[in-house]
């Protein structure tokens, strides 16, 4: 095992920049992405696809450097052999059947004919398309085409699977199956890096995210850790209680509480800078006030809220 292989990071970018003429793809991006499952997030134009293409070796950096699995990926067959890439673009040949398509790409990777055929079939089975293996891709639905793209990315059992918006076009069942597939890949030891706009699905899969905005790194790490850094935004909790007015009165004086809003149907929204005090005190306060708490939930612990906060604070 080489030193690079034993490294905990599959991607290391340093001052990475890529420009399209005057348009900035990514700029001054320095980020280390660990092994495991990592979500790449950002709004349209954030530079997600550019970054994924850079690390898939499709683009050459305009400035800076990027290493994938310990080596620069651009025009590097050694990296490409260990990497599976699922682009966002349609990228399929309509006149090929599903199995021919995956087999063809495996042949390009250097697999022999028989090995390529069996690996193609295995990959199609993993994306639940083995029944449609002999159908032409031109007759496939959007979701099926997406699954074929995923199949070709995983067919050669790569060490790192890079997927650009892999959940786009999938129906709920297919989404569920695809997320399950990613879990399996991770459990088998592959690293999975995927971009998406569907934030709650990222949360379902991993807590490790990279957030990009306008081509720059906004944040990287665990969702909870990122959230904890956002001190200037108080934590907000929704509390539904039988006697919300009385509970609100009691909570206003609690240390760290900035505001308490009374909403309709017994709903309270409490904003606090000391969530630990609120969480510790709330049962006692509710009991003493006989408020009768029916539900309690965080309004901004999720990725959606973290993302909104970060976007709001982004330049």
């Amino acid at each position, binding site marked *: 095992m080489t030193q690079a292989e034993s490294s905990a990071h599959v991607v290391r970018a340093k001052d990475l920049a890529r420009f399209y003429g005057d348009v900035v793809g990514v700029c001054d991006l320095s980020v280390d992405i660990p092994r495991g499952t990592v979500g790449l997030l950002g709004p349209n134009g954030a530079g997600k696809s550019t970054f994924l293409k850079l690390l898939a070796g499709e683009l050459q950096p305009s400035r800076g450097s990027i290493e994938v699995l310990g080596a620069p990926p651009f025009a590097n067959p050694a990296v490409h052999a260990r990497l599976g890439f699922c682009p966002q*673009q349609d990228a399929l040949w309509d006149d090929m059947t599903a199995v021919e398509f995956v087999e063809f790409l495996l*042949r390009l990777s250097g697999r022999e004919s028989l090995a390529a055929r069996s690996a193609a079939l295995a990959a199609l089975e993993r994306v639940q398309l083995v029944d449609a293996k002999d159908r032409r891709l031109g007759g496939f639905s959007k979701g099926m085409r997406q699954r074929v793209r995923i199949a070709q990315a995983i067919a050669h059992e790569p*060490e790192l699977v890079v997927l650009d918006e892999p959940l786009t076009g999938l129906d709920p069942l297919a989404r569920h199956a695809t997320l399950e597939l990613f879990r399996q890949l991770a459990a088998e030891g592959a690293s999975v890096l995927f971009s998406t706009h569907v934030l709650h699905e990222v949360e379902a899969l991993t807590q490790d995210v990279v957030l990009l905005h306008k081509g720059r790194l906004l944040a990287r790490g665990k969702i909870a850790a990122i959230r904890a850094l956002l001190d200037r935004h108080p934590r907000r909790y929704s509390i539904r209680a039988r006697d919300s007015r009385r509970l609100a009165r009691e909570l206003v004086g609690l240390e760290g509480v900035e505001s308490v809003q009374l909403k309709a149907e017994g709903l309270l929204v409490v904003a606090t800078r000391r969530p630990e005090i609120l969480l510790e005190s709330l049962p006692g306060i509710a009991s003493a006030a006989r408020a009768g708490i029916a539900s309690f939930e965080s309004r901004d612990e999720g990725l959606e809220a973290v993302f909104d906060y970060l976007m709001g604070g982004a330049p």
Partner: protein
Amino acid sequence: MNRETQASPTRAEMHGGAWRPWSGERQPARLRAAPIIRAGLRIALRKKLPLVLLFLPPVVATIIFSFVVYTVAALAQGMAPAGLGGAGGAMGQALGGGGGAGDFVKQLVRVREMIVGFHLSTDFFSVLLMAWFGAGLLAEDRKSGAHLLYFARPLTRFDYLLGKFCIVAVFGVLGSILPGLVIISVAVAASPDWSFLQQEGSVAWKTILFGGAWTLVVSSLVLAVSSLSTRKSYALAGVFAWFMFSGATALLLSRLLKDRDWLALSPVQCGVRIAEDLFDMRLGVRDWNTPLAWTAWGLLVALSWTVIWWRTRRLEVV
């Protein structure tokens, strides 16, 4: 599958600290273009209607020319197929039969003329073939983003372009060289004691040379136009526009300026001149600079590949 477990400083939720070092074996460098060629031809051969429509004219022309060549070769021996009414029949006379053994050499030369004539008359169809099957090769990849799949593999741009070129070239060979070789084979088989092969044997390699050069020129042009286009239809229109515009411009300038060297602007006119020179024939009054015709073809190929190389470098930006 080899698995290895190690402590990870940033442990992802679903990952459990396991990771999978790549256990495969990288294949030694070899011709990665081969799968592209195979897949490209397989796809092309599935389009039955274009295949029939585009191959029918060259096939019919090959059959007719083969028959005529066979007849002329037979007449050179003082024989003629019974269907033509014998060497002295009307058709036999029209084809120059019945002249006796003294005309034998002339008849072989006529066979050569026919083969050259066949080349020039089927050039149009070979252009059709190469344009139809080649126009979408780069344009459609660009449109669909398929190059992202190609270049995420251990594939070089040279392999990619070689694969694409070979796909077009196969149709060039099928439409240009192969029919010529079939007719030559008929002539050889019909001539007594392999006399055609002995006397006009060079026609075979000249056919390969001319057909190969023509295929190179047209394939390169088709791929260059394809690389500049976003759709197959645009590329098709571009190829035909090039041939028509260059042909019209070449003729116009050569007549206006009374200088036949301007014909070098047209790849087709260059082809005629090169064929005349290569096969030692005079098909018309187009007696102009042969090296200039070769140079024009060479420049067109160089220009085409410069464009292709530049445009495929830009593929990455799509």
